[in-house]
């Protein structure tokens, strides 16, 4: 029997496992215990569903478990948590989003896909465009030569997520719709919206000012450091627990201070509630031109590395 220490790759992964255990517990409570079908549990489920999507993101960058089979099994649970196959993140996030383009065409989740004058509508509408773009792109990518393992896992995840949700609906449709599907979709759509928050108004052609960071400490503890987005893009192989230090060391000297937001809630309010129009674009990349150059492989090399990792 494997020791606990070697079961997960990094001790910090227990936080992610705990998040998913709580989320599944909340969903199960609402489904099986009528007294739990209340707004408190519902809001908690929506919040943890969003965290489930964060865990998908982290897990698809670096598997939580040492054993590949456990990683694949965990993807099934995560796929149920957000009602989409977790493996979709490999092409959509690791290969396309991290490089801000799909072989000459825009990133499937580029902020430029939405154009409402009232910026709040862009936030609401964004998943309606980024979601279909993503699944069409994933389907196209999966259809190519040499993706057998990906296709098998993707099919399993789809069958598990929709199969289990469908089974629950068969037994109790309205409870499933209101207390399972709504939270699932809230998280799935929320993680797409994050793309708008993290990149709108940034310069995706720059090396250090392509992303907005949310640097609150409590926020990042709960979100497993997903607020540190610039360094995550540039050093995708870095474990999420190492991001705050790397952000401080490499990003802070090169980033426009306006792209380091102390609070996501405050950013949401000032960007989407307290103002009507989309904030004007500034030359945020000017900040990095004054800093000392950092050792960073060209994007093409980083993409080739990510493609090689995706095909193993």
């Amino acid at each position, binding site marked *: 029997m494997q020791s606990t220490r070697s079961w997960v790759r990094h001790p910090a992964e227990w936080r992610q496992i705990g998040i998913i255990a709580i989320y599944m517990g909340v969903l199960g409570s609402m489904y099986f215990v*009528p007294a739990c*079908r*209340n*707004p408190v549990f*519902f809001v908690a489920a929506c919040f943890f569903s969003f965290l489930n999507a964060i865990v998908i993101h982290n897990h698809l960058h670096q598997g939580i478990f040492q054993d590949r089979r456990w990683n694949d099994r965990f993807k099934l649970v995560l796929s149920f948590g957000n009602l989409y196959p977790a493996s979709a993140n490999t092409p959509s996030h690791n290969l396309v989003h991290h490089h801000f383009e799909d*072989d*000459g*065409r825009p990133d499937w989740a580029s902020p430029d896909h939405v154009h*409402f004058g009232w910026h709040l*509508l862009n936030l*609401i*509408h964004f*998943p*309606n*465009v980024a*979601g*279909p*773009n993503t*699944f*069409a792109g994933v389907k*196209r990518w999966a*259809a*190519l*030569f*040499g*993706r*057998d393992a990906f*296709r098998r896992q993707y099919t399993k995840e789809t069958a598990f997520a929709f199969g289990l949700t469908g089974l629950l*609906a*068969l*037994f*109790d*449709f*309205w*409870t499933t*719709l*209101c*207390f399972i*599907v*709504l939270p699932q*979709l809230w998280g799935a759509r929320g993680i797409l919206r994050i793309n708008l928050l993290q990149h709108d108004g940034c310069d995706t052609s720059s090396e250090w000012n392509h992303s907005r960071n949310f640097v609150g400490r409590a926020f990042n503890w709960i979100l497993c450091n997903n607020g540190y987005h610039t360094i995550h893009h540039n050093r995708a192989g870095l474990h999420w627990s190492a991001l705050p230090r790397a952000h401080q060391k490499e990003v802070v000297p090169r980033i426009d201070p306006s792209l380091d937001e102390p609070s996501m809630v405050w950013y949401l309010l000032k960007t989407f509630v307290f103002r009507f129009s989309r904030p004007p674009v500034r030359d945020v990349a000017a900040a990095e031109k004054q800093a000392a150059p950092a050792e960073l492989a060209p994007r093409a090399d980083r993409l080739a590395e990510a*493609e090689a990792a995706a*095909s193993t």
Partner: protein
Amino acid sequence: MSLIHASAPPGWAVALAALALWTNTLIIAAEALIRRRWIGTHRWAPRWDGQFGGEAVVAGIVREGAPLARHTVEQRGRLRARKTEIAWHDRSHRSEIAGGIVDTRFGPVRVPPGPGEAWPSSTAQHRVAEHVEPVPAGGRDPADRARRAKGILRQVDVRWVPGDSVYLMGRLQALDDGSWTLAPLSSGPMVLSSEDPAAWARRCRRELVAFATAVVGACALLTAGVAWPPAFGLRSSLFGALGLAFFLLIQPAGVWMRARTIEPAYRNLGGTTRVASRQDPDGDAVTPGSSLH
């Protein structure tokens, strides 16, 4: 609907589900209507005031220009798994107005070289893609090259040459020698098109309003089906399931509608090229013939 246990959900939860469905439906319909207005008020239906000097759409035949204009789609092709075909993915769309003379019923119109959009017909792109070779041509077998992550590249070029019919859209200005010249529109670049841009704009506007009406109508029907008594009974649950399917499907439908009404200069070409199967005595050489989707 439910086999073992059916619970009536709390009212607030059902209201939230309905709110999500309606918000999404209305925002997707609104996007379609905003695009319709943009096409209508923008540059594709200029009102010609009956005199040259205004903005207009004029049909003609290319007299000079080698070529008058060119539209290029650069594509990357990769071999599809378990299929004997190369799938093409658009990388970029480029328009180039090289300049020339077009004969119209009002006389010759000079088209100066410069920025502008070239709108090819889908048929012309299809015809060209049937015979276009990957670049660089020759060398290793294209199917083998398409198997690699880098794939193969090709350019689908549609050109307007003397004898081709063309629609010009822009500002027509008189010249001293009695001919005319085409200048950019006040609201954008000049357009050279294989098909009538005004007809394209009319079609798009018609389809966008039909789409918006259909999605709102369908959402209203589904809501009425759910609310029809007895609440949360079998019929209500069936309509609820349809509502969920509608919520999920309306999103790709909105993206599809957006792609369908995009300007032809940026329309996705895609396509596939058949290759002979491995068992084929001819090996895996690319066979002529593409299909576009």
